[in-house]
């Protein structure tokens, strides 16, 4: 397969004639081969969900975590290279901790996201370094403004704030489904189920086995990070499965 970049893709320090940095594009491509991840801002919190693709039946169910707590009221989902994602999560933890040490308060969501954006971007500027092959979806609670925020930082270091976002394999389908949701009235409890449904919608029969990880920053938990327990997730998947079957029956009837 001929290299699409034809010599302009050897280093992140080289632009192509049409103004692209191929290495960063390739990094973004590698993120889109990973299992889908979703973030949904709800009326009473944030829900993050990740589709963990299981490469082997021998894998312990709880390993290969994609959802992480990075501070009191912050959560981060990683999509893409797990090892690169781990770096970003560790950095996020340090940023929260050092901001608290310096300023005496927890960082506002936009500050944390901005810092992570800077960090990821740094790796796109040096010849001796490669970009992160991971996207970080950061959910945070702003205790001053009393609201939750959702940010996504992609391998180029770009950082945006979202009502809902998706990354990974099924992101196109997921984004379409997310746009259909009414986020002004959606509660965390409902969003957990919808997230499960959207993940199932974007999957194929030929996809590998998956485990669904869901975490929330919910008003009921004082916006502290909480991984949804096995029962909650399996309930959500069951509901999602039923919804999909109903949809399929409707399609058959038509």
């Amino acid at each position, binding site marked *: 397969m001929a290299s699409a970049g034809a010599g302009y893709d050897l280093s992140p320090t080289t632009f192509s004639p049409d103004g692209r940095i191929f290495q960063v594009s390739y990094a973004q491509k590698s993120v889109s081969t990973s299992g889908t991840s979703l973030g949904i801002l709800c009326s009473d919190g944030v829900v993050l969900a990740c589709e963990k693709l299981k490469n082997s039946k021998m894998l312990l169910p709880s390993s290969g*975590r994609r959802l*992480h*707590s*990075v*501070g*009191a009221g912050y959560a981060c989902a990683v999509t893409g290279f797990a090892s690169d994602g781990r770096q970003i999560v560790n950095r996020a*933890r340090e940023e929260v*901790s050092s901001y*608290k*040490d310096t300023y005496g308060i927890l960082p506002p969501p936009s500050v944390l996201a901005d810092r992570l954006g800077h960090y990821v971007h740094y790796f796109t500027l040096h010849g001796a370094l490669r970009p992160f092959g991971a996207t970080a979806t950061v959910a945070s609670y702003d205790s001053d403004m009393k609201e939750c925020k959702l940010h996504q930082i992609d391998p180029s270091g770009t950082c945006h704030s979202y009502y809902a976002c998706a990354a990974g394999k099924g992101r196109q389908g997921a984004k379409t489904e997310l746009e259909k949701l009414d986020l002004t009235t959606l509660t965390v409890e409902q969003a957990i189920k919808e997230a499960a449904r959207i993940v199932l919608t974007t999957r194929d029969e030929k996809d590998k086995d998956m485990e669904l990880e869901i975490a929330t920053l919910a008003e009921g938990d004082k916006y*502290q*990070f909480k*991984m949804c327990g096995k029962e909650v997730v399996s309930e959500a998947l069951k509901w999602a499965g039923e919804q999909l079957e109903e949809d399929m029956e409707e399609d058959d009837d038509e």
Partner: protein
Amino acid sequence: GSMEKYKAPRRIRTVGDNCLIGASGEYSDFQSVMDTLEGMVQDDVNYDDGEKSDAKSIHSYLRAVMYQRRSKMNPLWNDIIIAGKDFLGYVDKIGTTYEDSFIATGFGSYLAIPILRSKWRPDLTEGEARALLEDCLRVLFYRDCRALNRIQIAKVQGDDDAVVSDPYELETNWSGFEATKGDMDGDGGW
């Protein structure tokens, strides 16, 4: 409490859900210690691997910190008591540690320990323990001229969350102390 500027500083605090830390000495150093411990607790939450710092591990950690600081000739000027499930330990500004069934710092080590030694039993009920603590604190109020009668009592039991009471005033009885009152007419001496 004491006659110093702040009459009810929070000198007993919880770390995590079920560990209590009480400190005497330099309040700012205590605040710094609490910040570090709260960071440790948040790390536990972040790793989410089922491990939680308990009183014993916090005690070990503080020992290391206090001894290291003293060895650098830059001590944290505190005497700290750590309480948790089945644990009561002490660390001081030079890194000395011990565990016992009852511990006191400051004036308490002179005035309260003898009372505790004679009155403590392994099968004290909660009510008896509180009464015993109040008696000790009352003596400390009588005999320490800088002390106030405002106290706090905290409790940690089994796996339940640790609870710190609000400051409250001890009842005192100053009758029987007339003999120590100076004669206002004379030179004030007895």
